[in-house]
């Protein structure tokens, strides 16, 4: 049986790309980047800069990013603005064709980079209309596809989108996490010097659990004065303790915290039991909350952008933050001994917790920025300061 929705959108002449939603609707456009198809959840990001950081953020694993800003690719790509070398977004949707880059830092074109990294791009789409749809109906599962000859088996793509189980219940962290331990020496970026380096001397030792981390987190930890060792997501409690951490960092990452929590939460609980200082970001924050007894839930449209206001409850100060999450800690489920430290001023959702009387805290947003505002760098200093 022909899908009724797709029959409403016949392929326009020259279409070389398509987004096929699980409900059968079809959005045609011009493909770029890699050839082929990929399945994921369609989300949107409202940042006007930093597409390269977004597209390399492992938290976007299993997702197709709709950029709300129409011109993407303006400043090309470079080796510095990569946030990870593991799986991240499977593709992106933009309104305008990517044009030749113009920036002194550029080392290549965005489209070519996507192609080389197996990511699919779709241009020529009314991304605002798509965003509004996600706002109204939630983030749909879909297949993004690109073929220069424009030949697509739409019914098959619909089936593929339908068959995809979705992010809920999905443990993507173990896929994007490092598989081996790594001593991290890179520090943060400055205009003239690029990334700094810091030898691994005797300083507070932070073991960072990589659930799909953005590199800028580690750089900020180093900048704040820590010696950083990054370990894979499934590293056991014993293995972590053997590294003699002064503190443990729980990274961001993709997927459902409940799923990843299956193995991560017991580890975190073990660390808590031993009073090892903890700092969690995004997925790490969610799993810290679960370990402390709270619950998480999938959000309707998620928060993704670089303009999100978060209020620090201790003094009322507003931090403008970078966000990227589709799940959130349910603030109402925080047990005694867990204090809500930050809330979203957009919708009141939880954005930070601290365990009363203990050196353990987490934030839902991305204080490491990259892309986005750097208002919250202080959290890294706060954490490393706790370890001295």
């Amino acid at each position, binding site marked *: 049986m022909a899908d009724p929705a797709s029959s409403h959108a016949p392929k326009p002449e020259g279409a070389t790309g398509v987004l096929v939603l699980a409900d059968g609707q079809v959005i045609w456009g011009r493909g770029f980047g890699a050839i082929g198809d990929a399945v994921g959840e369609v989300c949107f990001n409202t940042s006007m800069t930093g597409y390269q*950081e977004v597209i390399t953020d492992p938290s976007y694993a299993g997702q197709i990013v709709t950029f709300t800003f129409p011109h993407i690719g*303006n400043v090309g790509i470079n080796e510095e603005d990569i946030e990870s070398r593991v799986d991240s977004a499977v593709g992106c949707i933009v309104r305008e064709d990517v044009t030749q880059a113009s920036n002194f830092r550029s080392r290549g074109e965005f489209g070519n980079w996507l192609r080389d990294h197996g990511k699919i791009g779709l241009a020529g789409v009314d991304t605002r*209309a798509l965003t509004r749809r996600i*706002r109204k109906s939630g983030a749909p599962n879909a297949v993004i596809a690109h073929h220069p000859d424009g030949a697509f088996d739409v019914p098959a793509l619909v089936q593929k989108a339908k068959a995809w189980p979705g992010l809920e219940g999905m443990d993507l962290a173990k896929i994007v996490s490092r598989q081996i331990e790594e001593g991290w020496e890179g520090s943060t970026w400055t205009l003239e010097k690029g990334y700094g380096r810091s030898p691994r001397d005797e300083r507070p030792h932070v073991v960072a659990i990589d659930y799909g981390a953005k590199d800028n987190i580690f750089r900020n930890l180093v900048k704040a004065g820590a010696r950083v060792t990054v370990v894979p997501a499934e590293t056991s409690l014993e293995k972590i303790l053997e590294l003699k951490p002064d503190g443990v960092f729980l990274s961001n990452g993709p997927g459902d915290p409940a799923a990843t929590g299956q193995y991560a939460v017991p580890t975190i609980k073990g660390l808590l039991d031993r009073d090892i200082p903890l700092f969690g970001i995004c997925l790490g924050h969610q799993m810290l909350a679960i370990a402390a007894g709270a619950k998480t839930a999938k959000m309707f449209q998620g928060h993704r952008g670089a303009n999100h206001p978060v*209020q620090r409850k201790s003094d009322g100060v*507003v931090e403008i933050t970078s966000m990227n999450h589709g799940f959130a800690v349910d603030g109402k489920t925080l047990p005694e001994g867990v204090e809500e430290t930050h809330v979203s001023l957009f919708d009141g959702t939880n954005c930070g917790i601290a365990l009363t009387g203990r050196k353990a805290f987490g934030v839902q947003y991305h204080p490491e920025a*990259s*892309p986005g505002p750097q208002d919250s760098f202080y959290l890294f200093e706060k954490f490393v300061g706790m370890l001295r």
Partner: protein
Amino acid sequence: MPKRTDISSILVIGAGPIIIGQACEFDYSGTQAIKALKEEGYRVILVNSNPATIMTDPDMADATYIEPITPEVVAKVIEKERPDALLPTMGGQTALNCALDLFENGTLEKFGVTMIGANADAIDKAENRQRFREAMDSIGLESARSGVAHTMDEAYKVLETTGLPAIIRPSFTLGGTGGGVAYNRSEFEQIVRDGLDASPRTEVLIEESLLGWKEYEMEVVRDRNDNCIIICAIENVDPMGVHTGDSITVAPALTLTDKEYQIMRTASLEVLREIGVETGGSNVQFAVDPKTGRLIVIEMNPRVSRSSALASKATGFPIARVAAKLAVGYTLDEITNEITGATPASFEPTIDYVVTKIPRFAFEKFKGAKAELSTAMKSVGEVMAIGRNFKESVQKALRGLETGLDGFNRVEELEGASREEIAAALARATPDRLLKAAQAFREGFTVEDIHAITHYDRWFLRHIEDIVLEEQNIISEGLPNDAAGLRRLKAMGFSDARLAKLAVRSVHVAGGLGETQALRSGLLHDTLRAMAGATSESEVRALRWKHGVFPVFKRIDSCAAEFEAITPYMYSTYETPLFGEAEDEAMPSDRKKVVILGGGPNRIGQGIEFDYCCVHACFALADAGYETIMINCNPETVSTDYDTSDRLYFEPLTGEDVLEILRVEQEKGELAGVIVQFGGQTPLKLAAALEYAGIPILGTSPDAIDLAEDRERFAALVEKLKLKQPANGIARSRDEAVAVANRIGYPVLIRPSYVLGGRAMEIVDSQSQLDDYIASAVTVSGDSPVLIDQYLRDAIECDVDALCDGDEVVVAGVMQHIEEAGIHSGDSACTLPTHSLSEAVVDEMIRQAGALARGLKVRGLMNVQFAVKDEEVYLIEVNPRASRTVPFVAKAIGQPVAKIASRIMAGEKLADFPPLVRDISYMAVKEAVFPFSKFPGVDPVLSPEMKSTGEVMGIDKNFPLAFAKAQLGAGMHLPEEGTAFVSVKNSDKEYILPAVKELVEQGFRIVATGGTQKYLADAGLPVERVNKVAEGRPHIVDKMIDGEIALIFNTTEGWQSLKDSHSIRATALTEKIPYFTTAAASRAASEAIAAMRGSQLEVRSLQDYYSTN
């Protein structure tokens, strides 16, 4: 944090008259601020000398002082009103400087007034170059390397730090005369030497050249809890070297990586913290080296600005409103983002479109001014356009400018030019350089070629190249005849008019035949259309509509669709269908609606006065129960504030763009009509197209407006009404012009037909001057005739503004000009009521105005200009639409003239309103303000061509005091003692005698040139003779430079005398010596001086004047 309760009344200082660099954006910000403060229950006191503002409407502030913005006068307001606080950040540099003076002279302390928004130290730290540089050093931000030199040796020392090229600016010279850019040591030596010579203090500032660097502006808002947010990042398309107000700019920044952007963001916040702007909006400007990313702080403004108005319109975030709330103690998280109604103001707007601003210039008004841009701002207005991509955005902006462009029009002077010529043209920063870049592509230049010369970022150039290539494709292939093809072109921003032109060219008929046939009908035209697809704007539209290619409307929501927007603030774009059809967010209502067309970019002759009228139409028709829909493209205005109308479309005012909006608005509800009479010439030009499309026009019929502008039809009406006009005629060739002038007799007033602001209008004394004029100033042809009038020398000119509902007529004001007939009415000072005319003459003008209004079947506003000579009333012209004087009249008499007019236009009768009281017991004087100081070398003399950018009002109990205030408001500080220089033409000598007598009585010393000296001495006055410039030194200009002259009366006759006295006026301007170039104004000035010496200037609020009237 809650609002402050320790203060209950707040003084707001406005920006005064519209001048270059300070335009109606400060009415927008001031109005927002006053509304916001009143919402919070504070008593608001306002001082602003500009009557053409919404902020000075009597129902805005609690006490409104239309008084000069000088520390002395504002101190009087403070003494009288005893405000608790002063908000100095809403009125531009004028308000900031005045507030700083009031702080420094102790007034604020004396009366216990607290500065809110920005304190004196923060203002000083931001404004003082040295302190600012030190502040930037202390937070590790680089400033341009520079140093001051007084000798050549010092200069070479500075050069060691700046390097070459270096910019040399002599200190204390007007418009940077004598400075320049040195690229080698020999040039450096030359320019420094010249600069030291040119500087009265023998001082030059030498700066590292940042020419060609990228320029950015960050709009920042901070609250007392140290929450800082960026509202908008603006990128200049024009690189460093062109004032940001004169630059084409885009938002958001398009060519920065996130890392660079965040450096700039963090730096901006640090600058605010370091300067100490505790609350409110500021902007910080940066220069970025495109090769290395090196970042230099240029300057910061600790107040709202032109760019914050732009940022507000570009994002939907009302910076001034929020800044006002922050100033009284709120924090950002306590303020709601009204666009969404659901989220707080403590966020950073993110947009999903591209905004382009293009400034508009008026060089053609100033003979002798070089149309080149530099670091001193020269533009008089700007257009903003919004599109879903840069191409659409920039092309919409170009057609919204109303300079005859429908996109990237060809630059004919460069067609087929040599590479050298093109390169030379690109090297000059002219207002049309972007068009020249497009032309250069057509002439074979590459992106790299153009980038190397202009330093436009390659990203922008590539998009312009795409547009040019697409145009060439249309020229070779013709228009596409399918929906996808047309939509693709429309999404690139091509206007229908542009597509029509390109389509016609695609037919390749020789010798301009295509262009000619496009305008005609018949077989040839039909053939052409068949070949081209379409040959005119309307045919392209028909083709487009046939294929179902319509624009959709998207909302400006501050959040890129992340949240629902409850405010209908919209722009058009062309989208590909997503789920079946292109998504349109216009959602027209089913209400009864009125569309008000705004005035587009400000220009000389069409400015804030017309926006004032449009805003009043919105307010009045909303009161009357209509849904009001505003269309405009000027980001500086109150009319484009999202809460002025019920629905706002930020769109170019072209037939195409307006008709598409009306199409959508007519889908639901009832369109009662469109108001085209309030926005000046811009909407009037659209009236015919709207009528042709069957759109109802409210008020006076466009035909009546046309009748009034059409000399021959109008003459017939004048004859029918038995009114008297100066002898006149129309000429379509040089020979006809000579014949008409001979019939009328010289002098004659000559001008092209159909213009606003008296462009290219001149008084001509002889046939040889007439020949000159026709040869140089205008094109005279069958399509563009010139109008020739008898020039009534020394007549008194009057303006009458009246309301008519088709039957009944009420005159709202009769104004008497101070300058004699022949000076453009917009440039002339005037009084309300008249101050020296007989009652009989005034009554006769009222009678004639009534007859004209009925004769033209006016429904709404009408303005009539008369000339009075020897008790005889001559009709000069009638404009059955809103005039420039409407806000002045409304402010003077305290009646909502424009509001009543709007409701009459929508069908109500004058009898429905309380009777309009015209008689007032005080005197109001309007004075024009001129931009001569921005155009070095231009003769600052008045003529029939309008040159003023703005106006002030002086109001007091009698004419001399009101005139004195008007002068003070306009920046002319009349002296109360000293030496006056008098040099007047023969016909003025008798007339000026009483003025000189008055000065002598007031203790002034008088010096005069030969003829005038003899005349005055013969009349028994003690007058010393002084040399004219041509008579040897020391001459009058030497004395002026030496500070010996305090006042100048100088009138001229004939070209030679005008030329001879140019240096006097130019020097008066640079030395800031009050000067008057007409005998009538000279007399008024002497009366004002006498009155000022006799009494202290007093201040009184409008509300007080009205209540005792």
